[in-house]
Structure formats: structure tokens, C-alpha cells
């Protein structure tokens, strides 16, 4: 793989990481901690929303994030011919 290609591949990878980690930060530290009180004013069934994020929602999003990452990266690997 040529050097410019490697740089492109790495740049796209870093862009994905930035997006995914932003979501990771928002659902846990944002919804579950910093804005928990504001969100608790909203209710979904028996749950206050902020509390739900802290004890359920953030964890579901974490799982989804890893699967999205797996998909994105396997596409990216194919695009640059670095898959196995």
C-alpha cells in the first residue's frame, strides 16, 4: 500500500472514530450525567429519561456503536484493499 493511500485510510478511520466517540460521549456523559436532571423531566412509560439513559440506554447505544464501527471498518478495509 502506498504512503498516500495509507494516509487517506488513516484519515477516514480517524473521522469515524471522532463521530462514534462523540456519540459515545453524548449518550453517557451527556444524557446520563451532565443533563440528567433536564432529561428526567421527560418520561417514557415508567422511566425518567435521564435515569433510563444512565442505567439502560447508554449501554444499548454502546453495543450498537461497536457494531456500526465493525461495519464501517470492514467497508473501509475493502475500499483500500487492506482486508484479509
Amino acid at each position, binding site marked *: 500500500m502506498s504512503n498516500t493511500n*495509507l494516509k487517506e485510510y488513516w484519515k477516514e*478511520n480517524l473521522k469515524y472514530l471522532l463521530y462514534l466517540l462523540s456519540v*459515545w460521549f453524548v449518550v453517557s456523559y451527556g444524557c446520563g450525567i451532565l443533563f440528567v436532571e433536564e432529561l428526567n423531566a421527560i418520561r417514557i412509560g*415508567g422511566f425518567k429519561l435521564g435515569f433510563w439513559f444512565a442505567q439502560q440506554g447508554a*449501554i444499548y447505544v454502546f453495543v450498537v456503536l*461497536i457494531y456500526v464501527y*465493525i461495519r464501517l471498518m470492514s467497508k473501509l478495509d475493502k475500499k483500500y484493499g487492506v*482486508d484479509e
Partner: protein
Amino acid sequence: MSAQVWIWILVGLTFSLYIGIAVWARAGSTKEFYVAGGGVSPLANGLATAADWMSAASFISMAGLISFSGYDGSVYLMGWTGGYVLLALLLAPYLRKFGKFTVPDFIGDRYYSDVARTVAVFCALIISFTYIAGQMRGVGLVFSRYLEVDINTGVVIGMLIVLFYAVLGGMKGITYTQVAQYCVLIFAFMVPAIFISFQMTGNLIPQLGFGGQTSDGMYLLDKLDGLHKELGFHLYTDGSKSTMDVFFITAALMVGTAGLPHVIVRFFTVNKVSDARKSAGWALLFIAILYTTAPAIAVFSRTNLIETVSNKKYDNLPEWFHTWEVTGLIQFEDKNADGHVQYVADAEVNELTVDKDIMVLANPEIAGLPNWVIGLIAAGALAAALSTAAGLLLVISASVSHDLIKKMIKPDISEKGELMAARLSSLVAVMLAGYFGINPPGFVAATVALAFGLAAASFFPAIVLGIFYKRMNKEGAVAGMIVGVLLMLFYMTKFKFGWFGGGAQEEWWFGISPEGFGTFAMLVNFVISIVISKFSPAPPQEVQEIVENIRIPSGAGAAQEH
């Protein structure tokens, strides 16, 4: 059949299964011993990682801990799952591509320095030893509570079992027993949860029942908040910790999780980079099943407990109350001698003390479930403790035989000699762990938190910078790790054990508790590493090539010596 008979049957069956697997999966080479030969499938590795990760504390204590702390318990739920996102995105694929056996291997090679390697070995050993002592204690506790043997006998039985399959099978044996152990522990955790969710809310899925309505039409969480208010506790769905502290503790647990060597090393066992990503996905999925159920159990059992005992006549309490009173996990002192149980927030008036472990251990009895469920809980708790202990043991033995003996003391050691050294060091490690299990140092609980703080303050920045910052050099990394670890040790010993003049809560730096201080120490490590590396020479060309190489997934090959 009585509960006792069921316990013996289920514990006996699961133990013979683990031993059977160990005999089948004996390790014949160092590669099999350290990384299970490197050909574990992503699904099997995900299952094994989940069992490796979920310890006696996750299985027995976490639901109870949340039950007594309500919203504040979220730090464990988010902290111990969110770390897997960091692991999957920032560490696992690259470390797999690097393709060595241990974490100190990476640190030592990436920072082209035996000092860095030694610091890493030292950190790996402290982290793993503090953690494993707690696991052996957990094994002993489960044995003594369920099988009515002495706690020390329990520790010894646990030692023998772990010894057998860890020493014989190495990583290969551990991997496949962990797969079996995950199945046992998750089944044991879910069965009572589903039963109780159905009993209380009519919903078979605990994650939904938790937000459901009870038979009187009230939402369960509202009802529990109401009970808490009535008895003077803070609202269950609100916290009592400061936002700042919750933030820092969650971050320390997340980053610590991603930096724990016994978790990282599991990603060395798969075939290629894409498999490392996939196994992180499987692992978190399997972990999430338990971690989203635990807060539901916490709410069910908290409500159950308050409704069963609060202001009830002591003599009319159900039988389980008295059974667990014998073990000392529930204590009742009739302060106002009215024959009723007053369970309130005010310590002067409160008459009931409940150990957090009871929330999972006594659940089947509280909910009136059949005897076999009790046997299942015992088998599940043992699976959780043994699987984690075995994973830690492997890190300890690999640190000694591979990182110390092979890489530093005696590089010309033969394959056979190294394998023997690995087995001997795991033997010694089990003995030591057993010793600490039998004579637990008073600070075990504090040191488990310390393990996360240390992992966050030492490994995480060194590994992440090693991958994402090509210019990072040994001067920066070594200084960062040393300062990070010393700062963490200083803060922890000062505020937990009262060294260096001790200190009260008011004196915490920026209001951060020792549990959350790992985040601060990690930030300091990052800053020091980067600043020092700016002012010292760039790493040699071949090291920069290693960094370029680990960033591309293809051509990983199997994990190997060189």
C-alpha cells in the same frame, strides 16, 4: 429435592465440565499457553471475554450495590460497559495487529526500552494481584454460604480447580472453560430475574419490567421513589454524589476497563484484526445482557425488601429473613423494643442492616422460587469468580515467564523451559492469591478500585499514544506512566489509608473521590507524556514503521514471538 442437594448437583456438574474441558484443551506450546494458539473464533472469544470480565463482584455484588445507591450506581453500569467502546475503537484492533503475547510486550517494543517494559510488568502485576485476591475471597464466600464449608476450605477448593485448568490448559484451557462459564453464569443470573420481573410487573423481560407497572397500577420506579421518600432515603432515581464526582468515577472505570491487561490480552487470541473488532462486539453484547438486567434486579429486590420488612412485626417475617440473619448478612436490632422492624435512613432510629450481596444471593428465596434456582445461583457465582481468577492468573504467569524471564533475564531460554516457567509461575501465583483470599488484607475493597485507577493512569495513555501519535517516544511514555501511577498511589493511600497525613472528604482535590481520581491521573499522564516527548528526540525509524504497520489491518498473521 432440598436446596442443598441441588447445590451439590449443579456445582458438581459444572466443575466436572470445567475439568473435562481443561483435559481436552491442554496447552502444548507457549503460543497455546499465552494466546490459545491464536485461532479462537470471534464468537468464542466474545463469550470468553465476557466471562473473564464479569467477576464475582459483577455477579453477586453489583445489583445490590445499585439497589442501595439508586442513580449513583449508574457509574458502574456505564463505566464497566463504556470501556469496551474505547477498547474496540482505540486499542483491540491495533494491539492484535501488533501481534505479541502481552501488554508489556507492546509497551517494551513500542517504546524500545526495557525500563518501559519493567514499569509495564510492575503495573500489570499490581493490577492483577489486587484483583485476584478479591476473586479468591469471592469463591470462598460462595462455598461457605451455600455448601456450608469453612470459608478457608472454600478458598482452597477454588484454588485447586483454577490451578488444575489454568496450569494445565493455559490460555487455551481458560478460553474454552470461560465459554462454558459464561453460559452457566448468564443462565443463573437471568432465570431468577425473569421469574421476579414476571411476578412483580407481569413482564417477562426484566429490562422492560423495570419501567413497568405493578399490580396496583403504579409504575414500579414511582412506587420505589415514594417508599424512599417515606423512609427518609434520597429518591432512588436521583443521586447523592456530585455531578463532577459521578463524571470522574465513570470515566476512571471506563478507561480503567480498557486498560486492564487481562481483558486486553483476550484480543491477542483471535486470528486477524477484523476478528478482534468482532469479538469486542460480541463481548459487549454478552456483557450488556447482565449489565442491563442488574439495575432491574436492583429495583425489584429493593422494592420487595422494603415492602416485606418495613414496619412489619419481627415474628411474622418470612423464613428467608431468619435464614439469612444466621449468616450475618441481615441484622436486626429492636432499638425501640416494639417488636416491629423500622427500616429508615436515620441511623439513630434504623434497626435493620442489610448486606448488599443479599440482593442477588437471597433473591430466589425472597421471590419464593424453586430450590433448583438456588443451586443455579451458587454455580453461577462460582463460574463468575473462577473465570475471572483464571484470566488474571494467566496475566501474572505470562508477565513473569514471558516479560521478565524470556525478555529480560534469560533470553536464550528454550520453548520447553519457558512453558515450564509459565506453569510454575501460575502455581506460585495461585498460592499467593489463595493466601490473600484466606487472609484478606483489610484494604481489598479499596484496592479493586485502585486497580482501575492504576490501569487508567498507566497503560491507557501509553497504549493510545503509542498507536495514535507516531512522534511519541520512550522518554515521554516512561515519565507519563511513572508520574501517573505514583500520583494515583499517593492519592489513594492518602485518602483511603490515611498515609501522608490522610485527609477528609472536604480535602479531596476538586471534589474528586479516590475512585474517580484515575481520570485525573490519566489526564496528567497524557499531558506529561506529550510535553516531554516534544522536548526529546523522535523515536527511531524502525519504531515509526511499527506504528505505520499496526495501523493497517492486513497481514496480521498469528500472534508470535518475533
